[in-house]
């Protein structure tokens, strides 16, 4: 299957999982990885640095209109929504919070689903609110692959169980299974 992008959403309890995933991807991962993780609005620095410590691929907080490139990860910046526009470009926005969140996982997933349709892999991880559930449904409705972290493994289950209530995910995976799935992409 010819995937064009991976998008990962998570909140409370997702940091370790994301770190593990990023440290297990091959350096030449063939597609871009978008990360929409809930974070404090007023803390601009430190998050990318913390995620980068063990990551095999470079991570950045994109500027508006930056072009997504394969083998790189893009973390939604503090207090901005991160959209994916057509032509592989990031668009940032300061619109209202959605599900009390900015960045909102729903908005990132919806726009990525519109941009990449069936060529998108959407992954929802541990988290404490329902943000991302609607977005994952949108990924599914557009024909993309949907993966939800096994709620039994999640530090906080609300996000994954909300996603599973709304969408029958293609896969309910543990962190290790998510990693093996991603490692097979080429």
């Amino acid at each position, binding site marked *: 299957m010819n995937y064009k992008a991976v998008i990962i959403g998570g909140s409370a309890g997702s940091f370790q999982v994301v770190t593990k995933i990023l440290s297990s991807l091959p350096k030449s991962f063939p597609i871009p990885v978008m990360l929409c993780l809930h974070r404090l609005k007023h803390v601009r620095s430190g998050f990318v640095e913390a995620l980068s410590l063990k990551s095999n691929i470079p991570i950045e907080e994109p500027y*508006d209109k930056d072009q997504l490139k394969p083998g790189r990860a893009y973390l939604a910046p503090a207090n901005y929504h991160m959209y*994916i526009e057509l032509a592989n470009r990031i*668009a940032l*926005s*300061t619109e209202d919070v959605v599900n009390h969140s900015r960045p909102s996982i729903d908005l990132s997933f919806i726009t990525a689903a519109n941009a990449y349709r069936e060529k998108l892999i959407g992954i929802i991880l541990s988290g404490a609110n329902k943000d991302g559930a609607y977005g994952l449904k949108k990924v599914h409705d557009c024909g993309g692959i949907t993966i939800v972290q096994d709620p039994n493994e999640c530090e906080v289950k609300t996000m994954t169980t909300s996603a599973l209530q709304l969408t029958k995910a293609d896969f309910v995976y543990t962190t290790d299974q998510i990693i093996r799935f991603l490692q097979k992409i080429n």
Partner: protein
Amino acid sequence: MTELGIVDIREIIRAIKSFYNYDFGNYALTSFKQRLERLIIRNNLTNADSLIKKLRDEPDFFDLFLLEISVPSTEMFRDPSLWRWLREDFLPSVIEKSIGKFKIWLPVCVSGSELFSLMILLSELKLLDKVSIIASSQSNKSIEIMKEGQYDLKKIEVSTENYIRSNGSGNFTDYYKLDRYYAFRDTSLISNVEFNKLNINFDNAPANVKLILFRNSLIYCNPTMQDRILSVLSDSLSASGILITGIKERISGISSNKDFEIMNEAESVYKKRIIG
């Protein structure tokens, strides 16, 4: 939820252009789409056609459209480190040195959060009588809301935290009063502000401006429109004038950026180059 397709959006843009000679064709697509969808829900409309019909039949609605299509600043004193820099490093010395009034322009005001933040800062620095402030907006309704001081109650808490982090020297509670549905900001702060209605092309931009506060507006424009707006802003600024953009807005990809050099990278502050 109403979801608009690309054809719907083109139809809406075409209709507005024919009714009002406003061209939204250079707005960034995804956020424009979301604003339109939000506007359709908020006004109890159902789809693109019903929006177009309302725009055609009710000219007064167009002013509200201009307000609702704009994205207000998320909160007051967003990015407290910028406000701290303005307070402690930049404004006092540059305003003291200014010959004549130090002219500051806010080209896109929606809710007035940037404006009131700035006025609180200038008031605490006791610099209000040394500045002249121009606040522009596309919508009359928006100007009315700012003049009344009306503000979203939900944003008071985060604005207060930001104000404290920006090293505000007073009590933030002194700057607003609570009502049942809104907070009302102290409008005496803006009594000398000149409000100006600016169209989408920025045709009536002021001249000889020393500082432009223009944060998180370029993100809603495509590169063509960014380029045009930046060249208007550059023309507005006097020699060595300062432009502040949002921290995740990059002006380096925009062709008119040759007019600017970086002054404070972390806070996205640019200085107009002296040509010659």
